[in-house]
């Protein structure tokens, strides 16, 4: 690939096939990142697009960047996104209220125009031949060695400044998410006294466990059939995420009983006919 590929104009057929198959996957992933309603689905689509891009980096001869893309982007950054989605709430959907009238359509139109301009610009540039990375990679004995020799000579100041940037970002994130404690924390003695002198002396009852549901957001039922809020944990209670299935399951039970009665009745009739 070193001498032959110099100033070539076509890649191998295998790469072309790979490009068209994975390129479609990447575009679909990008579109679903924008169009999916839930943030989790967006994050997963974006992770897929990033993995496809990593494959493209590898195909383009950027072996180091391909691996870094998978490790840093899909491994670290997307997981960070998923953590924040979990913190902020999976159920937080987009508000559909328009504060500016017709803003979405205008934005979509602007995006379309921008894309047309960008692609037309690339189409007008004369980019028919390419050199390939064979000689550049071979110069220092490989892609990673070549990158290292550039980073630690020509770009060494940029590299140092990047280190300063990362430290600043870390400190910034710690400062931003730090919360000052406004009231004194309860000590163990106060907590135990509160526990013993409070209303509920024994442990709190467990959440409802039916034959079909054993999730923690389902309240247990009291003897009269009403759900008890005490059985669901405080966080879910405050968020209003209690799932009440008592009526639903009572109806299902009723339907089941009715069906079994019909079945039994039919069987009895058949037996009588047989006699």
């Amino acid at each position, binding site marked *: 690939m070193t001498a032959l590929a110099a100033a070539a104009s076509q890649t191998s057929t295998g790469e072309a096939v790979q490009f068209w198959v994975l390129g479609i996957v990447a575009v679909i992933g990008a579109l679903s990142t924008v169009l999916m309603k839930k943030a989790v689905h967006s994050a997963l689509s974006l992770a897929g697009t990033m993995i496809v*891009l990593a494959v493209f980096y590898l195909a383009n001869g950027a072996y180091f960047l391909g691996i*870094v893309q998978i490790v840093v982007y899909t491994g670290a950054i997307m997981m960070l996104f998923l953590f924040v989605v979990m913190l902020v709430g999976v159920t937080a959907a987009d508000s559909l209220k328009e504060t500016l009238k017709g803003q979405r359509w205008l934005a979509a139109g602007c995006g379309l125009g921008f894309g047309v301009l960008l692609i037309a610009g690339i189409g007008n540039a004369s980019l*028919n031949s390419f050199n390939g990375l064979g000689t*550049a990679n071979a110069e220092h004995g490989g*892609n990673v060695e070549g990158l290292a020799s550039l980073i630690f000579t020509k770009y060494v100041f940029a590299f140092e400044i990047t280190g300063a940037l990362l430290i600043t970002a870390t400190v910034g994130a710690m400062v931003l998410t730090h*919360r000052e404690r406004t009231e004194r924390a309860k000590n163990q003695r106060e907590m135990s006294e509160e526990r013993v002198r409070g209303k509920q002396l024994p442990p709190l009852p467990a959440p409802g466990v039916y034959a079909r549901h054993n999730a923690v957001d389902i309240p247990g039922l009291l003897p009269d059939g009403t759900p008890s809020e005490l059985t669901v944990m405080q966080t879910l209670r405050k968020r209003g995420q209690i799932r009440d299935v008592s009526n639903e399951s009572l109806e299902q039970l009723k339907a089941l009983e009715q069906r079994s009665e019909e079945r039994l009745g039919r069987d009895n009739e058949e037996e009588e006919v047989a006699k």
Partner: protein
Amino acid sequence: MNPVYYLYLAALLFTIGAAGVLIRRNAIVVFMCVELMLNACNLAFVTFSRMHGNLDGQIIAFFTMVVAAAEVVVGLAIIVSVFRSRHSASVDDASLMKL
């Protein structure tokens, strides 16, 4: 196939990301669209590096990744702290200067 198709793909991904930033209201999704734009730029850098046969483009793409990581850390911290004070991750709700 000519590597210029990678540039077209990068332009398309960048456009989709830019449109997403304008269209979506959820701050986290807006952030993801920014990441998509950065990734599209990286793809263009890597492709140009291959076209010109030198590694400088890959170095720039590498620095972009580092900057993206720093940006995500700070940005997500901001989103979390905004969510704590307003109980919403929508960018429309953060239109007031003060609570």
